């Protein structure tokens, strides 16, 4: 089944309500964890047959928060609008030199990427990370170089595990101008990762048109690139798409609850086949799945499975 679901997956209505109950002291942490585990279990079943499984990240509050627990001298700051959405993310502030808590890397990976121990170490898992520019835009007092350094060490820990795929989430392309020196740092970072580690690495762009940066993006040594096809036009993007990389085609519309018309999706795939071989195409949400309610997202995934029948 060629569907992948990177990013934070929506919590069920029950988990939303129970998290609120927990915060108000109405239920215990163990009760909350049990309900969260039910969410993980159902989500795992939904992904039966997928090449890489997403854990859902149901305990995450946003894409950056876990890093506070692995970076010394960092803390959560004010809320900042998450790009052009109505979701807000807390920035990470670092007043002194940010340093990695080296001794905690193993535990940190276990806590945040294995759904509180639900998944075994050797399962094919998607490991999501914010990419450098996203991290920089939502942090204060941490330079791109420092972010790269921290990430390389953390990814070293992930690389030791079998069957993982690293997905970098990055909506900054098309949202702001990425300066030349930032591009250079981004390129050096990915090259370094590819040189040191053998984990497959994907870039997941969303929310905006990547047209202006596509030459840069397409030439980075990623194994695959995700494109939001509700913000980009196929004919404008795919002409230059590198044939040796996988395409993560963002065709599940996260801006609408309407279930996709399978025939339309098949047509889109046929169109994409003009540019890239079918083996290299994966279908993904056009942006973070948590922008839809859980029930809708589940229905969309079930429906999409039918595209391959």
């Amino acid at each position, binding site marked *: 089944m060629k569907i992948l679901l990177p990013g934070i997956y*929506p*919590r069920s*209505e029950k988990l*939303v309500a129970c*998290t*609120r109950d927990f*915060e108000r002291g109405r239920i215990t942490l163990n009760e909350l964890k049990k309900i969260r585990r039910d969410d993980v279990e159902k989500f795992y079943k939904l992904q039966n047959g997928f090449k890489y499984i997403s854990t859902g990240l149901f305990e995450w*509050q*946003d894409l950056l928060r876990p890093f506070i627990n692995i970076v010394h001298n960092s803390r959560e700051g004010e*809320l900042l*609008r998450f790009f*052009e*959405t*109505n*979701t*807000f*993310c*807390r920035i990470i502030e670092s007043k002194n030199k940010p340093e990695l808590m080296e001794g905690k890397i193993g535990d940190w990976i276990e806590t945040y990427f294995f759904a509180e121990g639900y998944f075994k170490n050797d399962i094919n898992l998607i490991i999501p990370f914010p990419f450098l520019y996203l991290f920089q835009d939502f942090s204060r007092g941490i330079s791109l170089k420092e972010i790269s350094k921290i990430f390389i060490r953390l990814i070293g820990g992930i690389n030791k595990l079998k069957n993982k795929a690293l997905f970098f989430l990055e909506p900054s392309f098309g949202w702001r101008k990425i300066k030349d020196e930032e591009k250079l740092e981004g390129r050096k970072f990915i090259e370094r990762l590819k040189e040191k580690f053998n984990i497959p690495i994907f870039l997941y762009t969303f929310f905006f*048109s990547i047209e202006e940066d596509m030459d840069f993006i397409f030439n980075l040594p990623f194994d695959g690139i995700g494109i939001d*096809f*509700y*913000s*980009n*036009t*196929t*004919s404008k993007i795919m002409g230059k798409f590198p044939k040796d990389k996988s395409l993560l*085609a*963002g*065709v599940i*519309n996260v*801006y*609408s*609850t*309407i279930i996709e018309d399978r025939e*339309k*999706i098949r*047509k*889109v795939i046929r*169109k*994409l086949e003009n540019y890239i071989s079918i083996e290299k195409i994966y279908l993904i949400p*056009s942006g973070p799945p*948590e*922008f*839809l*309610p*859980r*029930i*809708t997202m589940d229905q969309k995934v079930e429906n999409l499975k039918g595209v391959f029948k």
Partner: protein
Amino acid sequence: MKLKPFLTHEIGSLSKPSWRVKTIRGIPLEDKDIEEAINWGKLLEIEGKDKLLEILKKRRDFKKYEKEEIVYFSSLYATKLIEKAGIDLVYDGEQHRVEMYEYPIKRIKGFIFKGHVRSFDNKYYRKASFIGKPELKEFYHVKEFERISTFAKKPVKIPITGAYTLVDWSYNEYYLKDISPGENNIRKERKGGKSQFLRKMAREIIYPNLQALYNRGAKFLQIDEPAATTKRDEIPELVNTFKESIGDLKGNVFFSTHICFSKYSLLFPKIERLEGILNEVHFEYANRDTRELGVKEKKRKGYKILEKFKDNKFVVGLGVIDVHTNFIEPPELVRDRILYAIKIIKDPERIFVAPDCGLRTRRWEIAFKKLRNMVEGKIMAEKEIGI
């Protein structure tokens, strides 16, 4: 409409008393809930509070008419709290409403709730899809306006969630139902679909609501647009939405807008096209400011955006109270924030004083102290400049 300088007003929400929340949710009342009703009733000198206490004595299984009475009393209590603090324009802190999105959407045909999506941290809101022609089921703020007007001793200001925010916080599935991934001009298509949705909501939902309030005597209406700057390239659409929402009511009512926790610079200069339509533009400032006294730029760093108001005619709605902290701003701090604004704006008649946003996340004790100090700080500023 000529109004006095440094007119004070609140911004919308107050928290709801526990005896109101629990009765509506069907949770039995405890002694502390009854005590809260007694104590605030005394402090605010609520007429007829014995009737409320009589109803609350039941503690559980309230009938529909009893719940309605309880909502009436929470509206009365909240309005009196605001009056007691000395505020010039009053309201009941949204005691009749659930919150600013769900409440109006439930009263408009064409929407269907789909489920919860994250707002921030572990906070979620119920998001709806727009699936058909929008049609008002009722003028959804008239009842509260009429009710508050019966007991308010000061002019009443009613907030209404603006069309842009209602649209931006909903899925647009009526005008964009046939969209295909990767199609030509897909971003343009999405933008066009949103413009149609905005126009419809402004003309057929917000304008009739504002008109109904005006027809019943409302003189102060506040259009809340917290989503105003969400999308950088949609400021022209936002401006048009205000124009269409207010229409021929301009000049007949004092219209303000409240926008918060946003990148305000994006609004300028396009928002200036609303001069003569919108009277007051209120932002949140205190949240970005220092707590140190003084009127130097370094101390008042939260008020930088005031520069943008120097050359237009808007009344500046000046947020001087941070609503996300229990810190009680001393009157001297409020005074200095106002005096700093005077340094930039020059004309005291162009400055109204308010909290940054609604105070619903604060307990009443805190909200009351904050509002009282706000009024005291305003009086100190008046003395300072001799008015």
